[in-house]
């Protein structure tokens, strides 16, 4: 792992078009400002992991068709929460 020291207001660049700037420091918290092209997804690491794992779980659910059939019947017996005249 590359380790760099930066002061508040200073930045690092990653590749050609990603810039990470240290915006503020308070106790053990650091605020970072990130500039990146829109096709580069910037996420907190824990969100990235949680969403990736959840997508994998959703794609790999065993026997999901039969279970979806059963639950679908329960859900269809009630109408969606939202009505059109809101």
């Amino acid at each position: 792992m590359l380790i760099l020291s930066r002061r508040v207001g200073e930045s690092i660049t990653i590749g050609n078009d990603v810039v990470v700037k240290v915006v503020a420091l308070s106790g053990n918290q650091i605020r970072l400002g990130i500039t990146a092209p829109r096709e580069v997804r910037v996420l907190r690491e824990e969100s990235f992991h949680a969403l990736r794992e959840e997508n994998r779980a959703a794609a790999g659910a065993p026997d999901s068709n039969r279970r979806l059939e059963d639950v679908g019947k329960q859900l269809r017996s009630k109408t969606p929460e939202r009505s059109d005249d809101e």
Partner: protein
Amino acid sequence: MTNSDQRSVAIAAESELVGLLGKEIFFPTGLLGFPSCQRFNFNRFNPGDGSASPFFVLESADQEVSFPLIHPDFVPRDYPLEISPEVMSSLDVHNDADLVAMLIVTVRDRPEDITVNLQGPLIINPSALIGIQLVVEEYPVRYPLLVPAVQ
């Protein structure tokens, strides 16, 4: 991750999804964990017995991967969504036409354990057929789809 330009979006009602059925939707950044899956076919989930189902299926045209989906109206809670101008522009939105929001369903053994992913909704521009998995960190990744029965 604050952005003052966020704007609330009107989400198309479930009945408006008909126009998307059978269409191929392009997800330029893929889905999280599936970066190489960019093209997906959107269809209704068809139960074997021919009954109507509230579920839809997003099936990758690139790999053998599919995701069960449901419209947010079936989730028993308020679910306002705000979308940044950057996301609007990546979805190629030029007017105020409604966007489509769909939630990925994680099927588990017991029906009451089935959850929807409120943190990573799929937002689709139905006229451009472009989609993105939005990340809304204030919502949970696993939210129960079924309301517990009242005792």
